[in-house]
């Protein structure tokens, strides 16, 4: 099947297929591979209508930028008239009455929205096992996890259920599953893509981003969804560049990598060897790749969890059984409505994080946890930005290992949290980062390598990622 929008477009141009035909093909694929549990819902009729309209527009000679692209959206993105649940029971039956800016911009450029994708509940998890609607299975082995939280989004692309997807990334939720499933996943600079209509996990970390087979497809999707939006006041107010037109990168660049990250005990030795080998290849090609000390690896996960759970505990307060979504049938008054609805409506990991976040914000503990974590965040941001003033990119593994068995880490939250050890730094610092598939492990499963770029330098990062993709892996 076509692996990129360019390939798809030329097939359509040559008359080999139509967007309607493609959409029907993907709908069939989704049905055939329903055991992967990647899609929570397929928007069959709406998707076909969009496909027919997109074919019309192409024939009339005014196709949108995403004409020909069939895309799935993570189940945290609102789409008017469609259900959205964050893979949680607490939003059972809830239908959004408005559309997320990112989704609307896709539609405006002729994308076909084929369905909503399974994920960890409220985007909390690294294996997609925390969904109230069952885990997503790795497309290469149903006993293995796809990573998370955008597990459905990763598998849908990897298994060819659609051409691309939108995921969200709070601490690695795009890049980690992209790495585990062998696709490309981009987390843009914080403030590049509007969060309007994205069900919040941790507001100061969340970013929507594309997941696709190629860097080029990620770039064109970002180009469509990026840019100021009056609904989201935390956005960068400058117009975003035409990323897809800026993918040429020439000449030698300066890249940093962190000694502590490569020498970390948790890193799979084979992945480590691959990364070191890549570094040598880059040097051989004339790039400067330097090893730096970055002795803060032990702080990133704790700081991340203190801050994200604090924000989450507040963001998830609105799911209270009063106004919409799930309400316990056993509730008898206001207090029991809250307690029972939330107890029954939220899954275990979500409750764990709400409790943790409530604790770190409570009086008497605030300074010891929340304030201190904020200081760590500032320190990490300052150090990382300093490095990115002298180097164009930081190169690191995307994940410490490849996929792991379902249930393999779910009994040990700390082990699970360490899945994101290489990805949370970009979120803590608000920086753009991309995971591109690097190769195949001897265990048969894929893994990625990650580039972290300077703030708002998504374009430079994408251009170099395209070089990595085309020339080095």
């Amino acid at each position, binding site marked *: 099947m076509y692996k990129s929008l360019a390939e798809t477009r030329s097939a359509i141009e040559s008359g080999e297929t139509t967007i309607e035909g493609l959409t029907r093909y993907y709908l069939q694929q989704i049905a055939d591979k329903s055991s992967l549990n990647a899609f929570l819902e397929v928007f069959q009729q709406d998707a076909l209508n969009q496909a027919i309209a997109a074919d019309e527009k192409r024939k009339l000679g005014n196709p949108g930028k995403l004409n020909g692209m069939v895309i799935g959206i993570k189940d945290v993105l609102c789409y008017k008239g469609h259900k959205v649940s964050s893979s949680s029971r607490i939003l059972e039956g*809830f239908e959004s009455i408005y559309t997320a800016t990112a989704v609307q911009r896709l539609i405006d450029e002729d994308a076909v929205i084929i369905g909503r994708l399974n994920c960890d509940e409220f985007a909390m998890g690294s294996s997609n096992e925390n969904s109230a609607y069952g885990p997503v299975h790795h497309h290469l082995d149903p006993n293995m996890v796809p990573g998370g939280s955008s597990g459905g989004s990763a598998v849908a692309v990897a298994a060819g259920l659609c051409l691309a997807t939108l995921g969200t990334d709070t601490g690695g939720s795009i890049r980690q599953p992209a790495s585990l499933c062998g696709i490309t996943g981009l987390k843009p600079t914080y403030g590049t893509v509007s969060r309007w209509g994205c069900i*919040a996990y941790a*507001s100061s970390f969340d970013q929507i981003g594309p997941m696709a087979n190629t860097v080029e497809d990620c770039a064109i999707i970002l180009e469509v969804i990026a840019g100021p939006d009056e609904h989201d*006041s935390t956005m960068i107010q400058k117009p975003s560049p035409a990323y897809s037109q800026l993918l040429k990168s020439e000449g030698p660049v300066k890249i940093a990598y962190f000694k502590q990250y490569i020498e970390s005990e948790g890193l799979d030795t084979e992945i480590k060897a691959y990364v070191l080998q890549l570094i040598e290849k880059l040097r051989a090609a004339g790039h400067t790749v330097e090893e730096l000390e970055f002795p803060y690896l032990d702080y990133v996960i704790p700081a991340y969890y203190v801050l994200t759970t*604090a924000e989450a505990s507040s963001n998830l307060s*609105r799911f209270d059984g009063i106004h919409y979504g799930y309400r316990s049938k056993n509730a008898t008054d*206001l207090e029991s409505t809250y307690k029972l609805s939330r107890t029954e409506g939220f899954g275990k990991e979500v409750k764990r994080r709400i409790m943790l976040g409530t604790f770190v914000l409570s009086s008497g503990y605030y300074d010891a946890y929340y304030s201190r974590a904020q200081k760590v965040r500032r320190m990490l941001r300052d150090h990382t930005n300093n490095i990115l003033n002298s180097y164009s990119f930081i190169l690191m593994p995307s994940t410490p290992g490849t996929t792991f068995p379902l249930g393999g880490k779910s009994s040990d939250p700390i082990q699970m949290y360490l899945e994101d050890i290489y990805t949370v730094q970009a979120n803590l610092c608000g920086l753009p980062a991309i995971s591109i598939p690097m190769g195949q492990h001897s265990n048969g499963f894929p893994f990625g390598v990650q580039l972290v770029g300077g703030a708002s330098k998504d374009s430079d990062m994408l251009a170099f990622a395209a070089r990595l993709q085309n020339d080095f892996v």
Partner: protein
Amino acid sequence: MHSNQYESVIGLEVHIQLLTKSKAYASDPATFGSHPNSNISVITLGHPGTLPKVNKRSIEFAVKLGLACGCNITRENQFARKNYFYADLPKGYQITQDKTPICTGGTIHIKTNSVDKDINITRIHLEEDAGKSMHDQDPYDSLIDLNRAGVPLLEMVSEPEMTSAEEAGAYLTEVRKLVRYLDICDGNLEEGSMRCDANISVRLKGDPNLGTKVEVKNMNSIRNVQRAIDFEIQRQIQMCETGQRIDQETRSFDAVNGSTFTLRSKEKANDYRYFPEPDICPVIVEQSYIEKIRSEMPALPNELHKRFTVDFQLSEYDAGILTENKQIALFFNALSNLTSNYKAAANWINGPVKSWLNENGLEIDSFPLKPAAIAELISLIDAGQLNFSIASQRVFPEMLKTPEVSAIDIATANNWIQANDSNELQGWIEEAIAKYPGKVDEYKAGKTGLIGLFMGEVMKISKGKADPKTSSQLLKEALDKA
């Protein structure tokens, strides 16, 4: 009870609902009195994925109030979340300000029979209102109206520097006057657009330590705030006197029997888990912006009061009444530009104009005459063409009926112009003297009080047109000569 051994310490928290067109963090209308749940967008409803956006007008209103009170205006305004669960709070948190209130410092000046002092302001911060829960509208369910949810509020917190209900009343009256002058709030305690919570404690006179404070809520008029404070002071003194411990708690005022009752104790108080609102970037208030607002500030009651007493030489009393209401003060101020007889202007406003407004139940906005019309009346009187009673009782009512016709035209048409012509006057005087020859002798014999009788006659004959001042002078001369 030895209540005179105690002193009370009172601080007030005033919630000021802002008259912005839209809500604090959403574009839906902030209108009062709409059909329930009609002013609600996905933001107000707290739907998943929605984000707040700061209403710039609310910042402007806050800066206005801050400047009017002489506060420091905070440059970098962070917003914070105050987390608690309630049915009329759809997000599960209120967006407010915690560590960086938009205004700090500043004062409200109060004047009562016993004190004349400044009350210091601790802080003024921006926040959003909650919706309304109604528990008495339906036999089975509580009903929620979210129209008010997200309406912008300023919370103004005073230092605990008031010592009586009277001072608290004066403070609230001043704050209400100020927000109305600034046009940022309609200041209606009954409808809840201005709300007041009182923190009250008592201590033995001379004790440097503050007593345990009790917060009292739900008072919907200045009078009720005062009643609640009086009740609470007496209750606390009684508890001290009988050796009982005063608990830190929140109490509610019951207007029916004038008492307070426990709403919640401190043990049950929420831990609000304030933290910076990650969905809103800090709002920077630039000095140039502050200066622009300062340059557009309307005249404030204190300034007008000073102007009226110092520049216009009006009495404290007159100036006080004139500045009580912004529109009246502005009307007077406009009038003062058209006449230099300020005392007469004040008398007109505080007399005939206000009486007419009261009788008709109208505000000065609906007064049919322009300040220039009153100025004309004053100048006609000063020129001796009208006397005050003709002007106020005849010309003024006619002008109100036909505001487009000038006073002089009305007076001329009705033949009310006061005769200054001494020939005509002389004629009326002679006629009057001729009518009571006996009284002329009595007058000449020393019964000078009889001049009133002759004056009355002159007025009668002239149908009120005789200028009293000139007439009485001429009458005296005529009587002496007679």
